[in-house]
């Protein structure tokens, strides 16, 4: 029997399971519907209801504590248990919010980029993806996590392959190979842990782990788990699938996966390091900290440097994402409450920043078909509203105060200073300076160059695309100027994680 390791648990709230079931069941509904518009309507309705459920769950968790749901009524560790704490609730809200904002955007964007006979398939896949990501965040069982991980990954491979350029196919294939390797490594790690502990339930593993942590089996498990998850996170040097996948996928797909997939993978890392191994002094037993920190710093610098030389804006933003992931993992590697707070709040902040940036780029693609810097010349004057949203996202990447990017930087540098890690603080700030270079390249081209003369000007960006873009851009300013709410949630989550459960 699992001991109650936390006070205040709510059991059997069905909304916890409905969160995953609703999108999961509506995917085949979309396939049955055949019509693109009908499928879109279903998808949007589902995405919005999921957001409502997610907000309700976050609220409940913040007020009353961890929520539990036992599938089939079977007690853990024999049955599969769903367990939602502050960290999970936060991730759920991030994923649901991005889903809710992307769906209205998708209508016109998908119509422009994907052939009409495939629309219903697209929406089915994106609902599966949503369901998978949410499932990862709410499940309390390690193997169940694998299942949802693969659900979300498989649907992502399909979504990426829907891109119009044929390179989308090879990008999807490569992503598939590397992603499956990652998931398989994860499952090997889980198997090794199961061998030593006899349990798959995350909370149960946490209690049993201290007894077996010294064995070679668990050391191997840790290694497999870390490498497997790092592949999914796109942590340098296992990031090579990401640039192509983001560049050649349809715009909506890039927006969605840039804002959610890697964040959920970081969540998995946090779960493993701080919950499963939470009661083991993990950084003493395994040499993860220097490795993770090294990889994170490498990601921050090398990816930012790669971004500077790109001509394709989507690819530039993709490398920027790899760098930002470095920041998230750095917070994890610091392994203090402040470090984790920085990492967790950056999950949220980056989702907003990158979501807004890719939405703006998607709108530009819709209007002009342009993605390279050459094509973007002078676009600031022809599409002022769209570019303005991109400017906000870009400033956020640099870390200008009053944007969300600043809040993440603040938290991470504070966390480094608390540990007296001066060089690290300097490195974090130095890599932000690199962001100025590539973001400013885009700004300069968009505003300070003369536009090409073409027969038709850019198509007008429909409101259904402009409004979601601006919702995310304004969210980037709102949560940057008023970061208390998000920082408090992140802090609560960090405290729970550091507490061991």
């Amino acid at each position, binding site marked *: 029997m699992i001991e109650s390791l936390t006070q205040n648990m709510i059991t059997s709230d069905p909304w916890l399971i409905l969160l995953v079931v609703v999108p999961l069941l509506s995917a085949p509904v979309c396939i049955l519907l055949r019509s693109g518009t009908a499928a879109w309507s279903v998808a949007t309705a589902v995405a919005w209801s999921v957001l409502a459920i997610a907000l309700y769950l976050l609220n409940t968790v913040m007020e009353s504590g961890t929520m539990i749901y036992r599938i089939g009524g079977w007690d853990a560790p024999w049955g599969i248990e769903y367990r939602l704490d502050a960290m999970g609730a936060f991730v759920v809200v991030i994923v649901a919010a991005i889903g809710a904002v992307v769906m209205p955007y998708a209508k016109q964007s998908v119509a422009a980029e994907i052939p009409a006979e495939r629309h219903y398939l697209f929406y089915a896949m994106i609902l599966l993806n949503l369901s998978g990501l949410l499932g990862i965040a709410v499940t309390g069982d390690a*193997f169940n996590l*694998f*299942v949802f991980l*693969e659900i979300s990954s*498989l649907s992502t*491979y*399909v979504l990426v*392959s829907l891109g119009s350029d*044929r*390179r989308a*196919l*090879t990008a*999807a*294939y490569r992503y*598939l*190979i590397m992603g*499956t*390797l990652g*998931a*398989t490594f994860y*499952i*090997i790690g889980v*198997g090794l842990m*199961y*061998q030593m502990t006899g349990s*798959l339930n995350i909370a149960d593993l946490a209690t049993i782990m201290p007894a077996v942590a010294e064995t070679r089996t668990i050391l191997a498990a840790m290694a497999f788990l870390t490498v497997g998850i790092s592949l999914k996170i796109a942590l340098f040097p296992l990031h090579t699938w990401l640039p192509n996948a983001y560049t050649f996928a349809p715009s909506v797909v890039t927006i969605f996966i840039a804002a959610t997939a890697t964040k959920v993978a970081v969540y998995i890392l946090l779960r493993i390091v701080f919950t499963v191994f939470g009661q083991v002094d993990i950084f003493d037993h395994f040499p993860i900290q220097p490795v993770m920190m090294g990889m994170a710093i490498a990601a921050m610098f090398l990816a930012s440097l790669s971004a500077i030389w790109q001509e394709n804006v989507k690819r530039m933003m993709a490398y920027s994402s790899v760098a930002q992931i470095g920041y998230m993992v750095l917070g994890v590697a610091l392994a203090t409450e402040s470090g984790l707070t920085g990492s967790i709040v950056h999950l949220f902040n980056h989702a907003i920043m990158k979501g807004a940036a890719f939405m703006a780029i998607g709108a530009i693609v819709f209007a002009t078909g342009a993605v*390279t810097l050459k094509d973007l010349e002078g676009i600031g004057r022809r599409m002022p509203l769209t570019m303005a949203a991109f400017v906000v996202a870009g400033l956020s990447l640099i870390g200008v105060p009053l944007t969300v990017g600043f809040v993440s930087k603040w938290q991470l540098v504070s966390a480094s200073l608390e540990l007296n890690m001066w060089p690290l603080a300097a490195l974090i700030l130095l890599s932000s300076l690199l962001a100025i270079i590539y973001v400013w390249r885009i700004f300069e081209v968009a505003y300070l160059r003369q536009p090409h003369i073409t027969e038709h000007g850019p198509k007008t960006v429909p409101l259904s695309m402009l409004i979601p873009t601006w919702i995310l851009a304004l969210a980037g300013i709102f949560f940057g100027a008023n970061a208390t709410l998000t920082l408090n949630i992140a802090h609560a989550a960090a405290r729970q994680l550091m507490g061991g459960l």
Partner: protein
Amino acid sequence: MADFSDLFGLVTYWVAIVLMMIGFYVVIAQGNLIKKVVGLNIFQVSVFVFYISMGKIDGGSAPILDEAVKIYSNPLPHVLILTAIVVGVATTALALALVVRINRAYGTIEEDAIQAIEHDEEDLA
């Protein structure tokens, strides 16, 4: 002697490891896209072998309820592997579908050739 019985006792794990390495090597080293998928499958099979051999209990019978039997092998890994097999099948199906599409789009399924084509395209783009 103790060492040899350990060696033979652990033979399933050795098989799993060898399969894992073969599969992994094929995925990385082979240029043909279908062969990569095959390698991925071998890699996944090694995991299946590993899990199932984990489940076997010394002297245990198949996990089917019967009054006469006292010791059962662990049924849980079997369940897990069924799930993993399904996931593997889905992945393989998707991968092969992608390969078909790639073949249609590029006219080849050799990784080097495809990379060459993409490189030329990027230089012109």
